[in-house]
């Protein structure tokens, strides 16, 4: 009894709150019992935290018989780890302090296995994220702050390009999500025409403050964001931020939205010379019987201490017909983006505006520039738009029994003659070639200093010696997929072909001749054979051919234009070791040669081993 009484007295005394302004000489400050260890009462506790993530080991061994001179005589290389930002262990840690709020962070750990016990890298990938939602009778409002949130406003303002799903799936992406079986990844690509992607697909990374409201009265919704995209990043204290938002009104299955983005930074440390861009658009979708009109139209400008800030147009309009009308789904698309419109956070590339770059000298770090240095006149895959270009795109999908075919055709031209360069890729060996240069993203490499490395790819630049014109671009892309049984086991065959031409002016039809500055042809054939329920044998054949004409720079020895040919054959095994655990072994033979430029050739093999475990 005595114990209980004294404990009670103690508890009461412990819970006496003490004025923190002891300056005021509160008499409770002198209560001797208010001394000792604190806190004297139990603090709030959260019982559960969720941890998920993945482990991914990637080892790569390259044996080159023939390689670029810049690599010297060292022809065999071991790489452990993928390109930047790809950890071996990713832990996503999250908690819910209340029913409507949450926090999360992600911890990555990476070791290059250099033999040193101290050679580790740790960090955050997406940073520290805080979220909160609040539901009312007027709608549901949510707020996101902190680290990187994946978000989209509209294609032109804040989104990433999703394209037409015409790509090779032989090489695995670091972000490929776990599937039920290793075969599901390929079969889903066959059956759905697309891969299952993680949450970032089609979205852009954003850091700052996002407030959005959905299920508002009259089917309205809105979003507002203030902060930084990866192009506004960096540690400078001068403001470098963007503001974006949208108001959307839905009409059953249709909608109209007004979207805007404005990015501003300063080129000087005194914050007097402003640099940035604005873009205001309307996005819409109207369906009528078997037809659908959708797209986005807007206007934008770019301003800098040296730019006038002139406004230009941006439009992307699609007319889609269902197969009930045309026997197969057909899309007719027109796009036109003024050279004055720039937004690296949107789905189109900048090919017109050279960044005003007085202050940002030295090696670029992620997010250190507000706009990218332009890609010159880029030879891009169908669906990838650039500014200073307009064009028509036709797309159709056909399926006959187990045969699936998608065909895309585009004819486009530049609006203004700006660049005397064309950039293009090498699809057959694109990823393997990018692994030649670890770990940075160098520009101007290769035997002739015209190769630039980007994330998981390279592009090459060819100089035009002709007078600068508004060039024309034509592309034909074909994707074919089929499924059948071979010796009683499932097999998938995918073919991907592309035929492109770049010429001095617009042409409705491609110029597959020396009339084109550049012709690019590529063929990629893939087989996936289900050897056993948890084992897939994969094969890949790649071939690309690039031919330039005599209005491009010629080799000083041969006096001939680029004439490039690349081969690739790869074979691999996908093994499902356990639930959510896959082992992927691939071996590639590659060969490339430019028959005009004598130094531009390589030949060798690459073996990769990937172990990926989701939890």
């Amino acid at each position, binding site marked *: 009894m*005595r*114990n209980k009484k*004294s*404990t009670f*007295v*103690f*508890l009461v005394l412990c819970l006496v709150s003490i004025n*923190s302004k*002891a*300056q*005021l*000489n509160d*008499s409770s*400050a*002198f*209560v*001797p*019992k208010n*001394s*000792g*260890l*604190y*806190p*004297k009462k139990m603090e*709030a*506790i*959260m019982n*559960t935290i969720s941890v998920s993530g993945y482990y991914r080991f990637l080892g790569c061994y390259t044996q080159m018989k023939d390689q670029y001179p810049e690599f010297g005589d060292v022809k065999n290389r071991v790489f452990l780890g993928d390109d930047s930002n790809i950890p071996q262990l990713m832990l996503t840690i999250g908690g819910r*302090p*209340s029913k*409507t*709020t949450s*926090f999360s*962070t992600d911890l990555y750990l990476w070791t290059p296995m250099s033999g040193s016990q101290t050679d580790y890298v*740790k*960090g*955050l990938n997406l940073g*520290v*994220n*805080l979220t*909160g939602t609040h539901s009312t009778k007027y709608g549901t409002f949510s707020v996101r*702050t902190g*680290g990187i949130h994946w978000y989209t406003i509209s294609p032109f303002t804040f989104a990433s390009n999703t394209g037409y799903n015409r790509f090779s799936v032989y090489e695995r992406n670091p972000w490929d999500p776990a599937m039920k079986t290793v075969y599901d990844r390929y079969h889903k690509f066959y059956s759905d025409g697309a891969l299952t992607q993680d949450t970032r697909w089609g979205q852009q*990374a954003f*850091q*700052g*403050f996002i407030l959005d409201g959905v299920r508002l009265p009259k089917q309205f919704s809105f979003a507002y964001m203030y*902060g*930084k995209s990866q192009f506004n*990043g960096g*540690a400078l*204290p*001068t*403001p470098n*931020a963007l503001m974006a938002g949208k108001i959307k009104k839905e009409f059953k299955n249709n909608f109209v939205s007004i979207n805007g983005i404005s990015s501003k930074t300063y080129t000087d440390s*005194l*914050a007097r010379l402003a640099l940035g861009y604005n873009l205001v658009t309307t996005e819409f979708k109207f369906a009528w019987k078997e037809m659908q009109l959708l797209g986005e139209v807007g206007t934008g400008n770019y301003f800098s201490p040296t730019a006038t800030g002139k406004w230009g147009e941006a439009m992307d309009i699609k007319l889609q017909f269902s197969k009930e009308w045309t026997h197969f789904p057909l899309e007719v698309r027109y796009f036109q983006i003024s050279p004055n419109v720039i937004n690296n956070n949107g789905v189109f590339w900048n090919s017109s505006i050279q960044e005003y770059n007085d202050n940002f000298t030295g090696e670029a*770090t*992620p*997010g250190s520039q507000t706009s990218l240095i332009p890609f010159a006149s880029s030879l891009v895959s169908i669906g990838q738009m650039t500014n200073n270009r307009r064009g028509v795109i036709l797309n159709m999908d056909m399926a006959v029994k187990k045969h699936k075919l998608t065909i895309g055709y585009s004819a486009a031209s530049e609006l203004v003659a700006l660049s005397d360069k064309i950039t293009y890729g090498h699809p057959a060996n694109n990823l393997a070639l990018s692994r030649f240069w670890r770990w940075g993203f160098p520009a101007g490499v290769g035997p002739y200093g015209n190769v630039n490395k980007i994330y998981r790819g390279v592009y090459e630049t060819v100089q035009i010696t002709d007078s600068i014109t508004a060039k024309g671009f034509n592309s034909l892309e074909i994707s074919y997929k089929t499924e059948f049984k071979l010796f009683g086991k499932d097999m998938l065959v995918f073919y991907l072909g592309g035929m492109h031409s770049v010429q001095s002016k617009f042409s409705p039809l491609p110029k597959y001749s020396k009339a084109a500055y550049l012709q690019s042809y590529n063929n990629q054939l893939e087989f996936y054979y289900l050897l056993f329920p948890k084992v897939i044998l994969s094969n890949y054949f790649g071939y690309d051919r690039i031919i330039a004409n005599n209005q491009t720079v010629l080799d000083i020895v041969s006096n001939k234009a680029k004439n490039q040919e690349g081969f690739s054959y790869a074979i691999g095994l996908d093994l499902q070791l356990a639930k959510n655990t896959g082992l992927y072994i691939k071996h590639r033979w590659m060969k490339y040669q430019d028959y005009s430029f004598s130094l531009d050739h390589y030949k060798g093999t690459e073996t990769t081993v990937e172990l990926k475990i989701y939890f």
Partner: protein
Amino acid sequence: MKNILTVIITLIAVSSFSQEDKKVQYVGGARSIISNADFSSDQEDTVTSRKNSGGYALIDLGFKINPNASTEILGMVRIKNAFGGFWGSGVTFDVRQLYVKGVVKNALRYQIGNIDYKLTPYTFYNHNADLLVQSSSVLKIKEEVLNYESFYKNNTWRQQGAAIDFAFQFPKVVDEIKVNAFITRLNPSNLGNILERLYGGGNVIFTQSKYLTLGFNHVSIFDLKNTALNDNAYRNNVSSVSYKATLDLKKNIFGISGESGISSSALSLDTSGGLKDYFINIQANFQNKKSGLKVHLGYMDNGADFRSFGAQSKRVDFNQLNNFYERYTNDQIIRPLSNYDLYNDPTLYSNSITTGIMAYNPAVNNVLPYGIATFNRRGLFAGLTVSNKQKSVKFDANYYRLGEVRGQGTIKLRSFNSINSTVEFNFSNIFNWKKEQKLTAGFAFQDTKRTSDLAFEQIALKSTTLNLGLEMELVEDLYLLANSYYFKSKGNELMPVRNSEGEIINFTPLNISGEELCLAGGLKYNFTPSIYLAAIYESNTNSFSSVSSYRYNQFYIYYIMKF
């Protein structure tokens, strides 16, 4: 002995360890701040950036591990992500706190590692001497961030060391005897000239009954000899008696409380014996139960050589430079710490015990710059707290009429007047509104004088602080916030210049004249009482610099979680 019941008073702690039988639980907080400021000054300035943006997001994730029912280990990591740091850049990992605590044989509570500790206002206490007015509305958010960052809670100091406590209960004469003891490390030895410095002490508390409590307190800062190549070891001892006697009658409560003691501080090679002095603080308290009226009247006498660095260390060292717009104008003059900085920059605050007299700003607090433990102060003080029945109006005021015990550089003594008051109007209670509507006004006034026929002895300094804060609940959990903070100071002071031993070796004349005004407004949404989002805009002007006034506007977004 049979009549003596040994009871551990920490049953609450024991029970908390085994809550829901979970071995690992989580505590901590998360915060995201984005800010955007623009700055300008009266003088031509082509050097200072006009605009500044910044921010961060952080998580403090603490793992509370209970290996058994009577032990708890807490390790808390801080993961901080700078605004603008993408893909892992701008990320820092830190250990925010680490401790183990537990109960031995249901009889002794201990904690090792980080400890939050205090004893009494004159021995070991974290006084809040520089934020004189009650924070409300926007300032309350900022002060919460400051307090969280520096572990300021209940006037404790966050230290690294160990502490124990235990208690005995008795059936007669004395209800309880409680013992608190601690030892912390202030600095390690550098194996050269810096000795290992520790801070230890404790108290014994006799609770005779609910009417009388006595505490015998002792603390000591001391160097461990032979831990470095230095024989001159420092020691600062403080011993005191604290007490609270209460007479609880039917309608009123009368009481006496206070603390008195002695201090000494010296270096072992100091032949003069160092500094020794005493302090007295006694106050009579009265409380009317019906009206809620509380009055206290007291007397304090803190000797000129009274040194107790566990109670005299300041939260802010005023010798440090600002982190935000540290310099401005074309001459790049230093921008001194302002009240605005005190509320906005948690990095200005420290939780270290400083063995020495810390710098202070006489414009901010010249009367009691080290709290009520300020040395060389003698005089009367009084206080009043009153609220009406509906708790719709609360009023609180404290007045100090003090003087110096010993003149500084002269036999003339400074005299001080200080008043702090807060009045809070709770309109919800006045008008029976369901939503919270609160207006808080805080006022502080300080006056320092030293009169003399000699001009160099004359000191006259006045400071006024006024803070108005409004919190209006617009719709459920959504609040409109408005704040007006005004600070004015005018006059002169002679600031002592001290050597490393704390002795005054000179005086620097200081002329102060300026005003600071901060107007702030915004919205705050409470997801829960401890999780909220706030968007705040504020405008600040400051004319304290004799070279150039300056102003800046700032926009903030706060998202704060505690869990």
